[in-house]
Each structure stands twice: as structure tokens, then as C-alpha cells.
């Protein structure tokens, strides 16, 4: 009997020759990420548990992103506590203003294919895009890992999504994952691994693949994995020959396999206030919007800013409409500035926010009021996520958001491409 990619990663980690879905086992943690909001709680629990030294300071990464730049007087307390703990425990990897954790972890190669990684954030599933087993946990379990280097997991069954063919113009990986979420629902992947494969996925950039894995958790999934290939190895700076085991066997045991023909995908939108409330953009044409948001660990990468700039170049966003743009990392921001993309966005009327979580989690940089409607590229449109519970959030690709900002209403992005 063969094994799935997820099972292969767990076997590699535990040095076992077989694992079965549903089995409980301890994994050796290769890397952990803690962001600023939860850092004080991890530290507190670590001490309460009676630990004194972390198991391995080189495997711990702190990223300050939810409270950067600080918006409230109390915010800095989180950074001070994390800084003090890092100094005490000799943790060297502390990123104080470099971008969103889920962008930085793969970009800075803290995560490479085949690793088992945990983070105190649900979107830790993002690193599945480079063939790692990575998922979000709470701060109490993180404190236990800080002390022991281990965590128990249940080997998840896999839902496989095979997508073949060429995506139509104006359709992006965001449209793929939103449609899948609409098809399986916000709990359709609970406790499971999602695996994305097929020629369409092979053709996607690593950035686009990250969008898929990032949103796997929106179906409740434990991980969202993609087989690493030459693109992955180049991105992660590793020798591919070391990772040839990271492939699903042809006779792997999947709970279910879903087949999609890429040519049937369209630009879609997740309507308020659930990620699985999916509608074709065509059914929403003319829906008035007050604010667009392009950014986040889902869609704040270079290619996302680039497609927005392509649509906005030489044009102005609609009067009374706001467009917030937040690059996912400092290096993406710098690269986009060099390429002239930031200039195009700003001239079109965009407000540039620093690379951090900001508006995506409703902490800063464009909080919305009663009755306002937002169209955004991030991963959640929950009630009150970006401010008032009486606001509404629609989720879409960067192209759909940029086009909507131009007209102050939802439009088909394809007319600008």
C-alpha cells in the first residue's frame, strides 16, 4: 500500500516505515513560529509549566507582525516581553518589522520541504505550499513544544484535489481555493489534510501555491500540502535529490479525490460573512464597495501587487472609495518599489500600509465602520473581522479587488486585463 505526501512527511520526521491515518504519534518539531500577539502568553505558560530552558533556541522564530507598527499604548508590552525572553533564551531569529510571519517563514528559509512546523497562528498551513507539514496550534501547546521539542498529532486522512489544464485569463489561485471552499464548505476539511496537485498546480508560482495552502485552514484542514518540485527546491535553496521521497504514491490511500478542469474556473467572490459563501463575480456586478484591501499572507506578494498595478496603471480609483495596499514582507515592498509598482499604486490613489498583518485581522490601517463594505484579498470575511460587526467583507483575487476599487463597485476584472 502506498502513502500520501502528508504521510510521507510524517514518516520522514519520525523515521518510521509506515503510518496510518487516524494514528496518534509524537513528531519531532523542526521549527516553530510565534507571533507578537501570542508571545507573552507562550512565555507565561512556559514558565507556569516549570520549564527553564527552551529545547533548542535555533528552532524558534519570533515574528512581530500583528502589532506592527504599534497602534495602542499597550501593544509594545508584547514586543518587550518577547525581546526579553529571546535574549534570555538565546533565540536569535526575531523579526521586528520585516513582514507577515507566513511570508517570512518560507521566504527566509526557516521552513524547507519535508519539515514539521508549528506556529501560533491558524494560517501556518501556508508552508504546505513548499511541501512541509505545518499547522497552527495554541500558545499552551507551543509552550509545551518550547520545553520538549515534541507534539502529538493525529495522522490526518487526505482529500486530494487534482486540477488539470490552463486557467482562463483573469482567474488566479485565489479563485481556485475559493471555489474549493464553496464546494466542500468551511468544515469540509476538518482534521484532514488537503493535497493540491495536477498540471495547473505544477504551473503555478510558489507565491500562488501559498495562497492555496494558506486558505486550506478555512475548510478546517490541518495542513494543505503540495508536492515539492524544481520550483520549490529553487525557492527554498535546497538540493532536490534530498527530497525525492516527498511524493504521493500512485496507490496512496485518499479519503476522496476531487477532479477539476482548470478551464471551468471563473473569478469568484466569498460573500459576507463566511468563506464558503461563494458567488461568481458575474452575479455580483454593480455591488457598491467603500474600500478595497490588497495584502495579507494570502495575497500580498509581488505578483499580487503586480497584477493590481497592471489594472490601476494610469487610472484613478473611484471617488469616495479607499484602497489599502499592504505588501506581505519588507523584501516584497522593496522589490515592488524598485519595479515601479508602488508608484503606480500610489498615483492611482492607493494608501500604502507597512508590511504587517494590519487590516486583515482588524487591528489597524483601515478599520471600517457601520454600513461600510470591503472587498479584500485576505482569508477571512468573518463578522466584524475588519472593524464594525455592521460592516461587510467580500473576499476575492487581487485583480478583482483592484478592478472594484477603480469603479467603486464589484466588476468583472477581465475587462481590464
Amino acid at each position: 500500500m502506498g502513502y500520501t505526501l502528508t504521510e510521507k512527511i510524517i514518516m520522514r520526521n519520525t523515521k518510521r516505515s509506515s503510518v496510518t491515518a487516524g494514528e496518534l504519534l509524537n513528531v519531532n518539531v523542526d521549527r516553530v513560529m510565534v507571533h507578537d500577539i501570542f508571545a507573552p502568553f507562550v512565555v507565561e505558560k512556559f514558565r507556569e509549566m516549570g520549564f527553564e530552558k527552551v529545547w533548542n533556541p535555533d528552532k524558534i522564530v519570533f515574528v512581530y507582525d500583528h502589532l506592527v507598527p504599534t497602534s495602542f499604548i499597550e501593544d509594545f508590552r508584547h514586543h518587550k516581553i518577547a525581546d526579553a525572553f529571546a535574549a534570555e533564551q538565546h533565540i536569535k531569529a526575531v523579526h521586528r518589522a520585516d513582514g507577515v510571519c507566513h511570508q517570512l517563514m518560507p521566504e527566509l528559509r526557516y521552513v524547507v520541504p519535508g519539515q514539521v512546523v508549528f506556529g501560533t497562528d491558524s494560517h501556518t498551513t501556508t508552508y504546505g505550499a513548499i511541501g512541509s507539514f505545518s499547522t497552527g496550534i495554541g500558545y499552551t501547546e507551543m509552550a509545551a513544544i518550547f520545553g520538549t521539542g515534541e507534539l502529538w498529532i493525529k495522522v490526518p486522512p487526505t482529500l486530494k484535489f487534482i486540477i488539470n489544464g490552463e486557467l482562463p485569463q483573469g482567474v488566479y489561485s485565489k479563485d481556485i481555493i475559493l471555489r474549493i471552499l464553496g464546494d466542500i464548505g468551511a468544515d469540509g476539511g476538518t482534521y484532514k489534510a488537503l493535497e493540491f496537485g495536477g498540471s495547473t498546480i505544477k504551473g503555478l508560482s510558489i507565491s500562488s501555491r501559498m495562497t492555496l495552502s494558506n486558505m486550506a485552514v478555512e475548510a478546517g484542514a490541518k495542513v494543505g500540502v503540495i508536492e515539492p518540485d524544481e520550483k520549490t527546491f529553487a525557492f527554498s535553496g535546497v538540493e532536490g535529490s534530498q527530497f525525492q521521497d516527498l511524493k504521493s504514491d500512485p496507490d496512496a490511500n485518499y479519503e476522496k479525490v476531487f477532479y477539476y478542469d482548470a478551464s471551468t474556473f471563473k473569478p469568484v467572490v466569498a460573500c459576507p460573512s463566511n468563506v464558503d459563501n461563494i458567488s461568481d463575480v458575474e452575479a455580483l456586478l454593480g455591488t457598491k464597495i467603500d474600500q478595497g484591501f490588497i495584502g495579507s499572507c494570502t495575497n500580498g506578494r509581488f505578483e499580487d501587487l503586480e497584477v493590481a498595478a497592471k489594472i490601476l496603471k494610469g487610472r484613478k480609483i473611484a471617488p469616495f472609495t479607499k484602497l489599502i495596499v499592504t505588501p506581505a514582507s519588507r523584501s516584497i515592498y522593496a522589490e515592488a518599489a524598485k519595479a515601479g509598482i508602488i508608484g503606480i499604486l500610489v498615483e492611482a490613489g492607493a494608501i500604502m500600509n507597512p508590511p504587517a498583518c494590519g487590516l486583515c485581522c482588524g487591528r489597524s490601517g483601515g478599520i471600517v465602520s457601520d454600513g461600510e463594505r470591503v472587498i479584500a484579498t485576505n482569508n477571512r470575511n468573518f463578522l466584524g473581522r475588519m472593524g464594525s460587526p455592521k460592516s461587510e467583507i467580500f473576499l476575492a483575487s487581487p485583480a478583482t479587488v483592484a478592478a472594484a476599487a477603480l469603479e467603486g463597485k464589484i466588476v468583472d476584472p477581465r475587462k481590464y486585463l
Partner: protein
Amino acid sequence: MKEAFKGRVWKLGDDIDTDIIIPTQFLALKTVEDMKKYAFNPLRPELAAQIQPGDIIVAGKNFGCGSSREQAPEILAALKISCIIAKSYARIFYRNAFNNGLLLLENNELYDYCSEGDHVSVQLESSQVLLGEKSFEVASIPTDLLQMVEAGGLVPFMRKRNGK
């Protein structure tokens, strides 16, 4: 852990996400005691003040979906909810709840039979929930998880491991 207890029901729907349980803007408050006043704020701002120790939340499917914020189960434990009975739970919330000593039970039918303000009895030994004359079966909880809930969660469990 008491083997049998009774509580008043607060009824919530499907997909009660962690942003509803505790919105991000309250996560930087210093203590869980400060945060618990804002439980369910976007959906029912008045609810947190009305919840009494021992009350039970009955909900639909996918309770606790969304972020990994552990304040979500922590504030419910701080409000002294005796347990949640939902059709199903999101994965991270499930682990976080047990790690914080919050008991979660699963049943598909109770939700459709009970109304807010009803009183239900939970009998852990027989894995039953009683509403008037009607009984509902809940999946039994593995003993080691119950023991962790009983101990108050993963922190006391680790303290013991560390001989503290």
C-alpha cells in the same frame, strides 16, 4: 470532573468563529479576566454579562472555526461555562479547549430539540445528555483527555512532568 451536572442553555448557530468568540481588538488586553467581558461581542454583545457559572453552550456545526487564538476557549473557561455541546468543532479550537480544561461534547440532534433557557443534564459516565424526558448520546471522551480537563489542562499536566 463532576460526572453529572446540569446547566442552563445558551444557543448559538453554525460556524461560530473565533473572531466572534473574541475579536482581535481585545486580544492585547492584559488578562483573560479583562477579555471575557467581550465574549461573542460581534454577534451578541450582551451575552457575556448574562452567562452564569455552570451554563452550557449548545451550538451547531464547526464551533470555534477560524484562528488559533487560545483566548477563545480560555475566556469560555473563565466564564465558567461547564461544557459546550455542538454538532462539531474546528480542529485547533478542539485541542485548545481541552488544553485549557474546557470540556467539549459532540451531538448532532440536541441542537434542533433544545431552546435557549432550557436546562440540560450531562452524565459523563453514560455519555448522555438529558433534556426533559429525551436523552441524547454524546461521543465518549478518551480517559486521558478527561484527566487533562480534570487536572485543569496542559499546564498542570506539564508541571507534574517537570516535578513542580
